[in-house]
């Protein structure tokens, strides 16, 4: 159990709860600006093609159309590293790539005008397989990415950005091993995280140097921070609406924002670009494809002596920041494996399909879903219980790792072995685990199996945050922090931290809108950094405001500032609560006090998540039912139990656990079209299909900030896919080596088809 606090750790209604349940919460498509136009995008029907001719004259003449843009007349804004994404291009690189943009008085007119654009394409050969794309004779997708392999590194995360995992001497390591195993696993179902709300942007130029962006984002300021260099450093004010689900996909997606901004510039009016669901499937952030070939050296006691291999990462037709996902994945591999000898070489490759983007799990889920099954081959060979293997190999205080910045970080967090054990007890692991490839039970054609997966991420302290806390004489506080609400409840959690420091009722603390104009620097709600990084800045700002308040109060009370306490807007000398004065007596009524807080990058802590899964496989039909999930974490200190519970249950969402069983984007490799680009054919779990779910949450104080807490939401789905795959192996005794484990693959593995 954590400490007893007034607000922290207690379930309190979310600040936006009433707005959500009454329909008043404003999402991006609920907003209209005066004189606003509607933008629509003409999309490529071909996976790889060059525009030979494009005639927009009929569309331009269509009543109500205000602008038609093609590669010939758009601003030359460029994004990606190296620059490879233009606002519009003359080459199409995936089915759904943007050909032309229209702005019109109504959405219907814009849509109709798209049909009046005549395009003549020259089709080019396309490539979809990551290793095929690396061959010398493969179609070349981007001029600036020779051989379809992205250059390593990413300047934004530092000059030494982690590019591979290389340390020790792998040959020596293999020679010390009792067993050396080898294999290939692929997590290439490129599922769609698919938030219920499609992505959308409204852009309006106040003048040529001031662009205002309204969008739906989990990290409002990231849109400004990432787009400013591309747009010639114009001032970009970003305001986020309530965000209808993101799961990493609505951070800073340059292309939709550039489309709206280009149309707004061309028309001199605000323009909204809002995707429909078909576009959401065809032209927006999929997960990365991940394939690993690797050799693993292991001793009988579970010590991993060496790991060497290649990690092929397929980002589709473009990369938003996939190099960072690869770097973080490389760091996360080290967190789970205390191995002295490494040579893991990643290759980031482009192919002709809808690009991958930032997604919850951020390289780590993609890596682990292939790497953990590879390790299980070695565990099986050494006849090791996977829970014991994970306990032995997950990072411990005194260990270290190269993180995404390429710098060695000494780990100063807690040992999560105890957490793993608690989870095992709640799940009944000892009772259910019968050894590798052995079912827990057999009932006719049905076989029960269990599996376990884990994940941890040191991004909980990534990047920087700033916050102000402004207190006023009426005993209220406002947290100025550029924090969006995309479902994580972080705005409310930060208010709780500030209220705790200032000892105010929760309804006395509010937070500013997610608007870059009125808030200091904020990186965003990524990598579960809200609790530690943004929390630290907010706590420090509240403490600073309180210190300033006590300095003013001290002479009034005839005491030293360090001897003062405050509660509910009253200040008193510690132990003498009867002689209290209100804040306004200390401050006067014509004053506010502003405390400042700042957090700087710290990769020396990580969070932890483990998933235990129990499945039932019907060996006649090949169908797998997920029976039970136990999700295990130690978050140091719970901020809000219901919010945390929701984050853990979120392991089913955002292309998580179910990517092991049925979730996939089906790409037709003859035409490049996605075959299941609607919500009927893209399968998702309904209310009726959810299995028994149990969470195990420990609170071992973690040396983060005042409240000893770390966030965990981002990683909750990541251990799921490998846990389910292991459970299927236990049930049927055969290995499925790529996801999802659909009935046909299971029957094939069983030799039945």
């Amino acid at each position, binding site marked *: 159990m954590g400490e007893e606090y007034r607000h922290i750790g207690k*379930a309190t*209604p*979310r600040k*936006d*709860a*009433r707005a*959500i*349940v*009454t*329909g*008043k919460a*404003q*999402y991006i*498509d*609920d907003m209209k600006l005066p004189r606003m136009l509607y933008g629509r995008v003409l999309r490529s029907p071909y996976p790889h093609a060059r525009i030979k001719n494009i005639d927009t004259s009929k569309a331009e003449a269509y*009543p109500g159309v205000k602008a038609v843009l093609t590669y010939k007349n758009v601003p030359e804004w460029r994004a990606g590293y190296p620059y490879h994404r233009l606002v519009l291009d003359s080459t199409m690189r995936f089915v759904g790539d943007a050909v032309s943009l229209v702005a019109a008085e109504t959405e*219907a007119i814009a849509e*109709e005008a798209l*049909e*009046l654009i005549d395009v*003549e*394409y020259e089709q080019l050969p396309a490539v979809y397989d990551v290793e095929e794309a690396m061959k010398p004779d493969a179609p070349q997708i981007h001029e600036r990415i020779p051989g379809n392999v992205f250059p390593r590194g990413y300047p934004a995360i530092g000059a030494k950005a982690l590019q591979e995992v290389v340390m020790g001497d792998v040959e020596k390591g293999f020679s010390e091993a009792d067993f050396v195993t080898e294999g290939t696993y692929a997590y290439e179902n490129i599922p769609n*995280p*698919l*938030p*219920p*709300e*499609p992505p959308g942007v409204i852009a309006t130029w106040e003048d040529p140097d001031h662009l205002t962006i309204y969008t739906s984002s989990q990290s409002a300021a990231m849109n400004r921070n990432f787009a400013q260099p591309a747009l010639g450093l114009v001032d970009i004010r970003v305001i986020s609406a*309530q*965000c*209808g*689900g993101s*799961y990493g996909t609505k951070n800073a997606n340059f292309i939709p924002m550039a489309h709206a901004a280009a149309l707004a510039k061309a028309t001199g009016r605000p323009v909204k670009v809002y995707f*429909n*669901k078909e576009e959401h499937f065809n032209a927006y952030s999929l997960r990365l494809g991940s394939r690993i070939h690797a050799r693993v050296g292991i001793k009988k006691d579970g010590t991993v002596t060496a790991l060497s291999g290649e990690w092929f990462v397929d980002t589709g037709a473009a990369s938003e920041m996939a190099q960072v996902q690869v770097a973080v994945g490389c760091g996360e591999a080290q967190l789970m494996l205390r191995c002295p000898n490494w040579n893991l070489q990643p290759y980031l490759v482009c192919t002709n399909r809808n690009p991958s983007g930032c997604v919850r799990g951020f390289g780590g889920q993609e890596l682990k879903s292939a790497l953990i099954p590879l390790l299980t081959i070695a565990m099986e060979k050494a006849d090791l219980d996977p829970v014991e293997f994970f306990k032995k190999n997950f990072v411990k205080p005194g260990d270290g790792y190269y993180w995404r910045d390429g710098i060695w970080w000494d780990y100063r967090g807690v040992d999560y072995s105890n957490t793993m054990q608690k989870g095992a007890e709640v799940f009944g692991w000892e009772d259910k685990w019968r050894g590798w490839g052995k079912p827990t039970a057999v009932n006719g054609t049905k076989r029960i199996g269990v599996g376990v997966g884990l994940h941890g991420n040191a991004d909980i302290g990534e990047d920087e945050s700033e916050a102000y806390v402004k207190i006023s004489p009426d005993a209220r506080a406002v947290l100025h922090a550029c924090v969006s*609400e*995309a*479902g*994580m*409840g972080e705005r409310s959690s930060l208010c709780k931290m500030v209220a705790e420091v200032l000892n105010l009722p929760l309804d006395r603390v509010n937070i500013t809108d997610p608007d870059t104009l009125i808030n200091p620097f904020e990186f965003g709600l990524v990598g579960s950094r809200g609790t530690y990084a943004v929390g630290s800045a907010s706590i420090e700002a509240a403490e600073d405001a309180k210190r300033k308040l006590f300095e003013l109060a001290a002479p009034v009370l005839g005491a030293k500032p360090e001897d003062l306490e405050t509660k509910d807007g009253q200040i008193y000398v510690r132990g003498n609560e009867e002689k209290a004065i209100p804040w306004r007596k200390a401050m006067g009524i014509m004053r506010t006090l502003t405390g400042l807080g700042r957090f700087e990058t710290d990769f020396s802590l990580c969070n932890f998540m483990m998933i235990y899964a129990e499945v039932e496989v019907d060996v006649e039909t090949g169908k797998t039912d997920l029976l039970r999930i136990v999700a295990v974490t130690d978050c140091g200190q719970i901020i*809000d139990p*219901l*919010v945390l*519970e*929701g*984050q853990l*249950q*979120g392991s*089913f*969402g*955002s292309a998580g656990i179910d990517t092991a069983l049925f979730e996939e984007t089906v790409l037709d490799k003859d035409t490049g079209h996605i075959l299941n680009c*609607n*919500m*009927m054919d893209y399968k*998702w779990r*309904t*209310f*009726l299909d*959810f299995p028994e*779910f149990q969470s195990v949450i420990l609170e071992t104080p973690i040396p983060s900030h005042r409240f000893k807490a770390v966030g965990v939401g981002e990683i909750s789905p990541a251990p799921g896919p490998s846990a389910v795959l292991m459970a299927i192996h236990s049930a049927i005794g055969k290995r499925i080596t790529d996801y999802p484990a659909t009935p046909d693959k299971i029957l094939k593995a069983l030799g039945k088809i």
Partner: protein
Amino acid sequence: MEVNDGNEREKRKGVSERAMATSGTTEKYNIRLTVNGKAHELMVGKDVNPEHTLSHTLRETLGYTGTKIGCDHGACGACTVLMDGDPVLSCMTLTVECDGRSITTIEGLEEPETGKLHPLQQAFIDNTAFQCGFCTPGIIMSAKALLDENPSPTEQDVKQALAGHYCRCISQYLVVKAVKEAAGKGR
């Protein structure tokens, strides 16, 4: 363009027909719609076009933006409203077919005089039975239709009634709890 020439012609024909409808050359008549107890009269060709869905009319024409559009093809349940008490997918319902109907949206659940929340709304708040909240209005409307018909549903009844709703943050476990709790309290 080498494919779909026939389709292209069809599409353009569609364009001109829609343009005619937009310009108001079709027969004019009015659609009477009651939304949350308030009567609205919508002129076809002016306020409502034949292709307008109920979700479009509610959101864009009448300003009831509490109703969300997720997939716009009847698969996610976000647009659910009550029509004469029954849950309907407003993105799959044409406004011109709704003449004389009474619609309840999420904005219509509070007590009009006191602003007191419906027990379902309160239970969703108490259980934090949402994350991003985008699917919540639709879920609450289906849950209301369920409780109006069956004040004491089993857990399975609740899941069945909500099976058409997509929630990707995964609020399902807490939603079932909230609906059961609201059912227990009644109204």
